[in-house]
């Protein structure tokens, strides 16, 4: 069963939900883009459904709601520690299928890798429900269908914006009462079935091929092109890496906090250990490390899908116009070349 209501009605329909939940959704910030006069779209807490940007993929992903760029883990006084407080309210997160899938990918790392779940992640994730946003098919950098991340059934409410109205479908009975009096219509979410781009990811059959691939010459192109800025990982909805850092309050030198801050495997120093030289000290090596994580290592570890949802954000954000789509094409060719060579030998 679905519901229909117009823009003018939304605030009164959602006011109780907004009371109970902190609602996060894509929002447009005018003139904050990378080039003058361009807007930026990113996740933000909203107070009205009408603030939401429905038509454009966000520049930055929904992960910022679960893992802020800069997050306090605990506060310390001399010998005592106090855990930072969790959000007081549960969260309702508006997201497209790719972003919902991306959060499931991240949660494997935060919650299932190793013996312990990351409490900072879980305390938000366990109190979070999704509002699935109908995706209009994305843009020419999207390849979600190739990654199997175009569909999801992990949602409580599904929503589609029309010219003057919204269509709603409700799966989670908790939200049913709020919309009782709305016009009833047939509405179920649609999923994108085809992108402008489609690609296949070649399987890397074994460690020998993997290690040969790491040394393939095609990566060296990135020594010239990639400036190791990390923009592609900051915007990526599945990248999770962080570094911890302590800070002291200047007023009181005895008190401070330990934080964690986004880290990027593309930026110099990611693997540098004290007194040793950096292991991956070239842009090509860092690129190969990132790409193989997305399209081999993660899947190998968790025996699941690949770590990329095909959102194309990294393509938009790269100042050097490096496209992950063409990187995958080149990697596919290199894998074929290595396998064929090994057969002939």
């Amino acid at each position, binding site marked *: 069963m679905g519901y229909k209501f117009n823009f003018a009605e939304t605030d009164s329909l959602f006011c109780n939900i907004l009371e109970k939940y902190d609602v996060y959704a894509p929002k447009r910030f005018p003139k904050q883009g990378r080039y003058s006069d361009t807007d930026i779209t990113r996740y933000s807490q909203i107070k009205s459904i009408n603030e939401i940007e429905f038509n454009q993929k966000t520049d930055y992903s929904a992960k910022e709601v679960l893992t802020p760029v800069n997050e306090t883990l605990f506060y310390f006084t001399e010998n005592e520690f106090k855990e930072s407080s969790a959000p007081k309210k549960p969260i309702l997160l508006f997201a497209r299928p790719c972003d919902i899938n991306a959060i499931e990918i991240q949660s494997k790392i935060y919650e299932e890798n190793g013996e312990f779940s990351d*409490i900072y992640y879980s305390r938000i994730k366990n109190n979070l429900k999704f509002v699935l946003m109908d995706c209009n098919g994305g843009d020419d950098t999207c390849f979600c269908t190739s990654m199997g991340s175009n569909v999801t059934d992990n949602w409580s409410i599904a929503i589609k914006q029309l010219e003057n109205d919204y269509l709603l479908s409700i799966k989670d009975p908790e939200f049913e009462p709020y919309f009782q009096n709305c016009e009833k219509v047939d509405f179920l979410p649609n999923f994108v079935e085809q992108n402008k781009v489609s690609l296949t990811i070649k399987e890397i059959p074994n460690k020998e091929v993997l290690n040969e691939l790491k040394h393939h010459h095609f990566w060296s192109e990135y020594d010239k092109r990639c400036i190791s800025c990390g923009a592609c990982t900051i915007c990526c909805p599945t990248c999770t*890496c962080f570094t911890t850092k302590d800070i002291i309050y200047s007023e009181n030198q005895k008190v401070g906090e330990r934080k964690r801050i986004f880290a990027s495997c593309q930026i110099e120093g990611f693997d540098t*250990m*004290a007194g040793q030289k950096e292991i991956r000290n070239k842009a090509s090596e860092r690129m190969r490390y990132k790409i193989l994580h997305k399209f081999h290592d993660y899947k190998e570890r968790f025996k699941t899908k690949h770590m990329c949802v095909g959102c194309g954000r990294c393509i938009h954000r790269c100042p050097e116009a490096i496209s992950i789509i063409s990187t995958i094409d080149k990697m596919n060719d290199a894998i074929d070349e290595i396998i064929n060579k090994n057969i002939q030998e």
Partner: protein
Amino acid sequence: MTEQNKNHMIPTACKIISIIKETDIEWTFRVESNFKAKHGQFMQLSVPKIGEAPISISEIGDNYMDFTLRAVGKVTNDIFEKQVGDYLFLRGPYGNGWPSEELKGKHLVFITGGTGLAPVRSLLNEFYDNIDRVKSITLISGFKNKESILFKEELKKWKDKFKTFYTLDNDSIEGWNCGLVTNFVKEIDFNSFDNNYAVVVVGPPVMMKFTGLELKKYNVPDENIWMSFERKMSCAIGKCGHCRIDETYVCLDGPIFPYTKAKNLVD
């Protein structure tokens, strides 16, 4: 607090009981602790306001733990400012540790370079006290020079029960050999071990690489070799990503790997 929702990032204050200055830049800190740990595991040591660093446990006692640190940066330098009675902040233990059960009943060869001796020290001491648990122990231990020798008392003690080759890279002093540890692999009669042996290698990356290659010259099977890795770590619980090599997380799956796996870990 249940294990599941315990905060694994928050450390516990542990009092420093003693500080032994092994060398100018490598000191062993003994702290009070009730953490239950296995040989070869490591802890995250922190100094609030400064940060955290992964450090191997170099000895485990009933109520204490030792850490042998080299002062190289922010955290380690700050720890060197501490005195007996001050606190270090610990969380852990982390990592897999040495496969102690698997090593029992075998001829064991330990090859260590520099501070690589720290993560095997507690295991060596356990076997020293219970020598009947192994067939034999050979220890090849190398240091850069006279000034960088660690655990001098123990090195002396171990000579009683272990077959030892102690060597300095580029220094000659009484009772010590001169040359790299790799030069002493040829002294080991692997054939006399009846294929019931294991080789443990710990040290800087180049040292481990060349020792691995040297061992292959003597047809030591990959399954018989164990190595301990060091990688940058920011969490030690599989979340921060810094220590990952392919699908392997050094903090979770390591830091100790059989050579069958180690030889394929290409960063």
